[in-house]
């Protein structure tokens, strides 16, 4: 499902995907994804488990190599650039992982300061100031000497956001920001994302299956199903969509288990015909 691109949106687009395909070995996960992410917008990628939304996110930050297609990010096709160029782009993006992915052997402060120490030649005192600023932004001031294991789930996620913000990224990626959090803490994380959006006009891409949080933070949404884009549009467009798959996802209708008796019979006989498969 390709979008039509006028010249104006080309200029505005921060990330453009063109016919993106990703495979793990023989199995193709994404079958030709294409959409644009505009500068300064918050795009939520929705999809059920196994829909390929996490793979899409991993491909966008360069953790998976697409088997074909293009990803234009800051004017470069990251599907076909050297690892050195990719590293340069990565310094301009931040990623908050599902479980936080903080380094367990370092304090929260060392975690947040790590990208600065690695990629800049700033004085320790400057790094200290930036560190305090970033922790303040996510509401964790005073926690720099705690170990990640001493933090609660929500605080870990906040610390991970602080680390993702350390290099003042232009694009921020979130993988399941509210997964594993209770509703109140999850609402706090949503609030944080909204604050970041308001304060820095960052381009934010969030992968989630939490509908409430998605409608709260999104400017636009993409629904991914079985490796294809089903629908893309603003939150209102999604809400009023009549597409059956969109309706099913938004209205939380369970998948019919096995639709036809005949299919079921066929499934059984298939299994019988190839024993041991």
């Amino acid at each position, binding site marked *: 499902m390709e979008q039509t691109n006028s010249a104006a949106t080309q200029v505005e687009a921060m990330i453009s995907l063109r016919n993106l395909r990703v495979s793990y070995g023989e199995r193709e996960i994404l079958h030709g994804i294409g959409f644009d992410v505009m500068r300064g917008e918050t795009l939520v990628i929705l999809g059920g488990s196994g829909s390929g939304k996490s793979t899409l996110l*991993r491909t966008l930050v360069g*953790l998976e190599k697409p088997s074909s297609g293009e990803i234009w990010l800051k004017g470069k096709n990251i599907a076909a650039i050297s690892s050195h160029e990719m*590293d340069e782009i990565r310094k301009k993006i931040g*990623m908050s*992982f599902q479980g936080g*992915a903080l*380094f367990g052997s370092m304090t929260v402060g060392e975690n947040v300061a790590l990208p600065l120490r690695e990629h800049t030649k700033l004085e320790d005192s400057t790094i200290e100031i930036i560190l305090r600023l970033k922790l303040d932004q996510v509401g964790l001031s005073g926690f720099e000497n705690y170990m990640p294991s001493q933090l609660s789930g929500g605080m870990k996620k906040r610390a991970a956001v602080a680390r993702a913000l350390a290099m003042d990224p232009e694009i921020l990626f979130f993988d399941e920001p509210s997964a594993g959090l209770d509703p109140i803490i999850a609402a706090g994380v949503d609030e944080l994302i909204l604050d970041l959006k308001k304060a820095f006009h960052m381009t934010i891409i969030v992968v989630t299956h939490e509908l409430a949080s998605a409608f709260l933070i999104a400017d636009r949404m993409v629904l991914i199903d079985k490796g294809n884009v089903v629908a893309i549009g603003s939150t209102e467009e999604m809400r009023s969509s009549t597409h059956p798959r969109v309706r099913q996802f938004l209205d939380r209708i369970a998948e019919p288990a096995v639709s036809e008796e005949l299919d079921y019979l066929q499934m059984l006989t298939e299994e019988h015909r190839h024993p041991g498969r």
Partner: protein
Amino acid sequence: MELTTQIGESVTDGLAYLGALTKLGGRAAYCTFIAPFQGKPLRIQRAVSQAMQTGVGALPILSLITFFIGLILALQSAYELRKFGALNYVASAVAISMTRELGPLITAIVVIGRSGSAFAAEIGTMKVTEEIDALETMAIDPVHFLVTPKFIAMIVMLPCLTIWANSMGILGGALFGVAQADFTLVRYVQSSLDALFLRDITTGLIKSVMFGITITAVGCHEGLSTGAGAEQVGRSTTRAVVVSIFLVILVDLVFTALFFFMSAR
């Protein structure tokens, strides 16, 4: 037909594994020798703390084990030497077999158990909790950040540990020598030293460096290739130990043969 297919498959798998280890070692070597000149400084501090863990931390258990090994060697060689009334050769038998073979090997096996497994578990856990991915998205090379300090620590510490192990082994032998073979401690140590050529010690040390490279490469490779899920960490830790022991013995064989044919010429 089945059999040849299976043999072919396991040979190519084995070669691919060795290739992956070589690649990892090569990248670590690049990070050690070339990257510092391209503005990516070495992590000396991490290497030092790693060396403390793998080296200094291993001293008590290694001392005990090699002391016993030295004693066992003395007992075993005395069993045979006694028949020829050549009990005073115990010292040289223990010294030579310790420095040439058992010192490096026992050290390697103790280090596999303590550090090789720990490397796999540490990196494997980081892989499972997406910490390795996080490093990559921050444009930090995991090999540069995690693996290279381990290589440096092991290459420095394994020969040091081996020298220590050699001396503890000789001391273990001395216990038998003094108690059973009319040696004094000074005379035992003296005749051990007399029996040794510098070559015996250096070949042992060269081997121990190779063991250090092998153990680190296997431990880190197993860690980095951990799949998803906590049980996979256990699996890669076990594999790291088993594969390391096998490869260390293989490297030992290759180098022993090499030294043998080199000295024959």
